[in-house]
């Protein structure tokens, strides 16, 4: 279970105007602006639920994921995941979660994928039997047989993403955070990834928190969505209820766009 209560977080950003004069001036003096990345957000995700976490760029999605995975400490608020505070009991906590960053890779670039997997096995101290079972299952479900022996740098984006997802699940985490897992993928790879996540959730009751800009991801995977904008939770409800509010809208994208307009984000 993921419990988030009144969590806030802010950052400092430097500003400068254009031109030579301004450039010279900023040698001595720089202006900073405080950006409120998260402003008292709260939500609760019970075990086994799949939730879509959406919002425009810079809304605070990644900060939330970082806080939930123990990389970032919030200024205020409480987070409890399966009874642990992520940033206080980091090592115990991360053993139980899997994280996929769509824009970054965790595979070692120059070695075959399977070697990266074996190293992860040792890092997480996964017992042999469990590792072999997981590997077999993931290989079958994500169709990895052909690519396990290829160095990561030679994989296509879709192949790599399938490997990334497998890499995050080798230690059988109970919770999976997916940060834009389908970004840049072709239609076939997208469907394969979605299909896999659905099966995973069904079979293992893995809790999934998914951020994405692809509304079809949401439609396929999440019954519940949380909308965040300018660091605040604007909406938290089921997708079907939301659809009823917009009976005339034809596509999900249009619906989300009008939601963004409604909240001026």
């Amino acid at each position, binding site marked *: 279970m993921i419990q988030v209560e009144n969590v806030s977080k802010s950052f400092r950003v430097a500003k*400068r105007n254009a*031109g*030579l004069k301004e*450039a*010279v001036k*900023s*040698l001595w003096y720089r202006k900073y602006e405080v950006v409120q990345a998260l402003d008292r957000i709260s939500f609760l995700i019970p075990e086994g639920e799949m939730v879509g976490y959406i919002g425009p760029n810079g809304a605070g999605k990644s900060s939330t994921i970082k806080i939930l995975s123990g990389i970032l400490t919030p200024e205020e608020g409480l987070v409890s995941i399966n009874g642990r505070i992520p940033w206080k009991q980091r090592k115990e906590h991360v053993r139980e979660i899997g994280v996929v960053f769509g824009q970054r890779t965790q595979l070692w670039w120059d070695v075959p994928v399977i070697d990266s997997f074996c190293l992860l096995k040792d890092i997480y101290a996964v017992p042999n039997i469990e590792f072999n079972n997981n590997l077999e299952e993931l290989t079958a479900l994500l169709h990895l047989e052909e690519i396990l022996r290829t160095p990561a740098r030679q994989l296509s984006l879709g192949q790599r993403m399938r490997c990334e997802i497998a890499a995050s699940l080798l230690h059988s985490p109970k919770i999976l955070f997916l940060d834009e897992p389908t970004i840049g993928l072709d239609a076939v790879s997208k469907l394969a990834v979605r299909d896999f996540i659905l099966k995973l959730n069904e079979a293992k009751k893995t809790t999934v928190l998914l951020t994405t800009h692809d509304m079809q991801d949401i439609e396929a995977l999440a019954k519940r969505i949380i909308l965040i904008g300018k660091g605040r939770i604007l909406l938290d409800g089921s997708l079907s209820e939301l659809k009823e509010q917009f009976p005339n809208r034809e596509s999900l994208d249009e619906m989300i766009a009008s939601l963004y307009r409604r909240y001026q984000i």
Partner: protein
Amino acid sequence: MQKYISLLRMKFIAGIQYRAAAFAGILTQYAWGGMEILIYRCFYLENQTDFPMQMQALSNYVWLQQGLLALFMAWILENDIFEMITHGNVAYELCRPCDLYNMWIFRNMGVRLSRAALRCLPVFVVAALLPAPYGLKLPPTPGSAGLFLLSAILGFLNAVAFSMLIYVSTFYTFSIQGTRAFCLAVVDLLSGKVIPIPFLPDGIRQIVELLPFASMQNAPLRIYGGDIAGPQAAQAILLQCFWLAAMILAGRILLRKALSRIVVQGG
């Protein structure tokens, strides 16, 4: 011409934004200059008769070298350009109505000037306050000052023209990083970065002084302190002109050849 100047200006503005890097650079230059002088002082105190320069001339050499590092070193290069070449994005640059050689050489000049502008004054001021013969002193005569200025400009251009050769060679070599680093290490030795050229053994020294590498920093830094003067200075400056022309010509020809090959291959 205007377009190249504004390219230089843009790079200059971008360059002076890195004030933290400049601050760190200044500190490094103080420390490095101080260390060099400490080392040579030991040898100077050991045996003054075998010391091939005046101690004051050596101190001037070291402090000018530190302050103007960005102008004279061969290894001030832009990674953007290497990436552009290795990833085949040069084709985009060719779409612009500019001469590629000029574009890159002005970029490089902008980068170097911005770094030198931020660093030279603080280094010179502090070095000037050090007691003789370990600090930086004004050139002995107005004449040597004028010659230094001329030679420094030529040295700067020589360094830029040489870095153009390094960029262009990227089209022809594989494993760029390794080869480049290897060459630059050799250049450091031959240009008088590792030890000033007068400290090289006789016989080797005379040859090294004729190479283009000596035209980058060796000539201006030694003219400043009067270590090279009179007809020798004139000769050094002529040599600088010769190498500058030769390197620009070589760079242009090699670049044209490389580009024609790319166009044939279609990128």
